[in-house]
């Protein structure tokens, strides 16, 4: 079988100022030190030293990864307002999956999911669009009845699989509306 290269490429370096890199390092160091103390459950001085050193090394690695441009993630704070809807979706979808399992096991019905494309504005290779792609993918995939198979940058679409066919969840609906505004030719409008 022919072996194909993965096609990985080195992204462009992020031109961060020294001050901003220090802020990034400090933020990672503080968060990791907090997690360290959460896990060791003691505030002894020797644990403080060991935790500080471990957090410093890990924060340095995170800052280097950030500077290399491998992670471009700059979400908007207001996106967190979607969290209650996503949590509701998780509960509702668990019920849908239970129903599908009931139909499959008890009533011996044929249950098969559907795959479909949703128009989606791919955007650019910047932190804001990257965060939007990642969080839309996460929000759609965390609700059990649906997940994203693929994000197509050329076709500006999401390939989504849904086990129990039904209306799109609010995140997908919003992205579909955004795509309709950005690409009116999809609905037969002028380019």
């Amino acid at each position, binding site marked *: 079988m022919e072996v194909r290269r993965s096609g990985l490429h080195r992204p462009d370096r992020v031109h961060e100022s020294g001050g901003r890199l220090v802020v990034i390092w400090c933020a990672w160091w503080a968060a990791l030190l907090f997690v360290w103390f*959460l896990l060791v459950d003691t505030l002894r001085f020797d644990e403080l030293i060991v935790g500080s050193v471990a957090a410093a090394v890990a924060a340095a690695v995170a800052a280097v990864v950030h500077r290399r441009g491998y992670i471009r993630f700059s979400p908007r704070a207001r996106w967190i307002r979607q969290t209650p809807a996503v949590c509701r979706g998780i509960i509702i979808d668990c019920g849908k*999956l239970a129903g599908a399992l009931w139909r499959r096991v008890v009533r011996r019905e044929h*249950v098969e999911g559907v*795959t479909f494309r949703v128009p989606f504005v791919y955007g650019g290779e910047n932190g804001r669009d990257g965060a939007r792609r990642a969080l839309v993918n*996460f929000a759609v*995939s965390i609700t059990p009845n649906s997940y994203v*198979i*693929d994000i197509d940058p050329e076709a500006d679409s999401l390939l989504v699989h849904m*086990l129990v066919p039904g209306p799109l969840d609010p995140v997908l609906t919003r992205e579909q509306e955004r795509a309709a505004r950005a690409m009116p030719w999809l609905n037969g409008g002028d380019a």
Partner: protein
Amino acid sequence: MSISSAVVVVLLVVGVGIELLCCIGVLVMKDAYDKLHYLGPAAIVGPLLVACAVMTRESLSQAGLKALFAAVVLAIASPVLSHATARALYIRQRDHVDEPPSRLQ
């Protein structure tokens, strides 16, 4: 039996029940795309209920926080793994490593 013990038992029964039902779902569903859906409740709801049972017993001690942390890690990992696995299958079918199902667009 105290109220907290009763709450713990209920949380354990429901949590374990959800896990076992999801295992049955993974077994009986038709293909990998359909099976993947049942990883969601197994990774999100089941562990969260078990972590809540641990926290009911241990409150916000180290044990309770670690159980909650493990449940949160599973919940965050689930959609990532579902997407990665589905994408792997899609690429295999697109590149003709496997035969695509007729219903795949």
